[in-house]
């Protein structure tokens, strides 16, 4: 069981990690202390590995800073489920191996409730119902399996789905 952290729409990368807390202003090692440090200070203190972020539209809009999803990965966020994601955030989070799902029903999920994400069955189970997720393509699953795109490339010397004979 994981706890749900519920957010609204248009959560921008400055709310996730403000620019002043960028790794080159502080240090990479401290990044895990800063997710939502100003927008929702209890998050970084209380989040447990596997907890879920559930949000409205356009999650992660704003800058191209990869350290925003990276901070969420460091604290062990199990998945982010949103009605939609901003493009560069989606890519960055996917590359870092954070499970992401787009789903229309996120308004029905409550802040602080317990829920179980079953990635293989592609569903979220709560006390008030079971919600279906669109299963990700193989490309994405391969990245998740190796932890990140960089991890995948290090291991296989190619991108997921590329012919194994690639240089």
């Amino acid at each position, binding site marked *: 069981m994981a706890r749900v952290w519920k957010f609204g729409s248009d959560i921008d990368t400055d709310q996730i990690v403000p620019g002043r807390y960028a790794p080159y202003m502080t240090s990479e090692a401290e990044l895990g202390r800063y997710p939502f440090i100003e927008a929702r200070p209890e998050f970084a203190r209380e989040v447990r590995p596997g907890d879920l972020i559930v949000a409205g539209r*356009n999650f992660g809009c704003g800058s191209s800073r990869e350290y925003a999803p990276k901070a969420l990965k460091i604290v062990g966020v199990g998945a982010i489920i949103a009605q939609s994601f901003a493009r560069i955030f989606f890519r*960055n989070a996917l590359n870092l191996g954070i499970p992401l799902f787009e789903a229309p029903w996120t308004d029905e999920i409550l802040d602080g409730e317990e829920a179980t994400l079953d990635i293989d069955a592609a569903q979220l189970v709560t006390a008030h119902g079971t919600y279906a997720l669109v299963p990700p393509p193989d490309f994405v699953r391969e990245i998740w399996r190796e932890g990140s795109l*960089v991890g995948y490339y290090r291991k296989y010397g190619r991108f997921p789905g590329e012919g194994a004979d690639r240089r």
Partner: protein
Amino acid sequence: MALKQTLAERILSHAAGRPVRPGDLVVVPVDMAMAVDSIAPSVISVLRQELGARVRDPRRVAIFIDHVAPAANVATADAQVAVRRFAAEEGIAQLYDVGRGVCHQVMIEERLIGPGQIVLGSDSHSTSYGAIGAFGTGMGASDVAMAWASGRTWLRVPETIRIRCHGGFGPGVGAKDLALHVARTLGADGARYAAVEYVGVDHLPLADRQTLACMSTEVGAKVGLIAPSGEVAASWPVPEWLSSDSDALCQREVEVDLGSLPPLVAVPPSVDTVVEAAGLADVRVDVVFLGTCTNGRLEDLRAAARILRGRTLARGVRMIVVPASSRVLAAAVADGTLATLLEAGATVGTPGCGPCIGRHLGVLGAGEVCLSTGNRNFRGRMGSPEARIYLASPEVAAASAVTGRITDPRALAF
């Protein structure tokens, strides 16, 4: 090719070596991948520490020191020292240092890229390269590092939103007004994951195309494309396969009659709250900022100079001009444009990003109002969260500098 395709689909089909459709995932060779001073340290760290790799082909890498240039403090100065050292170690000749200009302008000026190519940048406005028909898109540090190490990237083939333009601009109206009209029509996330493709703009010069392609990212687009024609087709080699079917299936089509567009302004704090400049005559401005990758080119400086010639800034108004590149600055000196701006009372900063991201060279204080020719006006973008940023064309900027209030340039004779 019998298959009808949008420009994005055609470029990615060519790169992937097979016909692709929206939604397909492809892994494609990258022709050029660039990083800017503020993100390059992260790219270098992923490349060296996480990938344990080196740059595969230094000719396909470019680095720009433009976002905080010259350095504003010891932290940025130290970061720049490390970036220069990295470029030397990896044999990267294409390092453009302090004063050369904004990455997106210099990439095109230096002809580092060409029509039909796949170009990545560590900066969201890398959509700018669509101005010459290149598939330019912004990415994060891991993606750029992967491209530097492997020479490739993954892409999801985007749906296309087509902006079909008719006619030509009226006096005092231009590409920025069109871009703001598109932002108002689509909304700030209206083109998420999609390509925006402009058609019916063959008469527009390169500078206008750069403004349109650059601003595509403000509607959430992956890429903002214009098929090479006119000035672009005359000065770049255009591959024979690079064309677009203007009747290919697309996600949405928006028709715009250019002749009916008035001068427009985006009202803070969002790019898609767009109203006519004439309706904002009550808004007093403290600072006018003329510059950025959106509107810092010679054409933009000239448009402002046409209005400022023989006039002076209103009392209490500061005007900061930051040419997009050293070449723009030199040309504006040579043809007298700069003298006109200076005589009116403007001042000039080092070519680069200037105060666009609020880190140096004109940071705004609480309560200040800025009329900027840039592309983003969210809270705190240029400094204090209590400052307000209105976005508009160089013509609106110059007219507002003269009156001290947001002004429709057509209200002044020029």
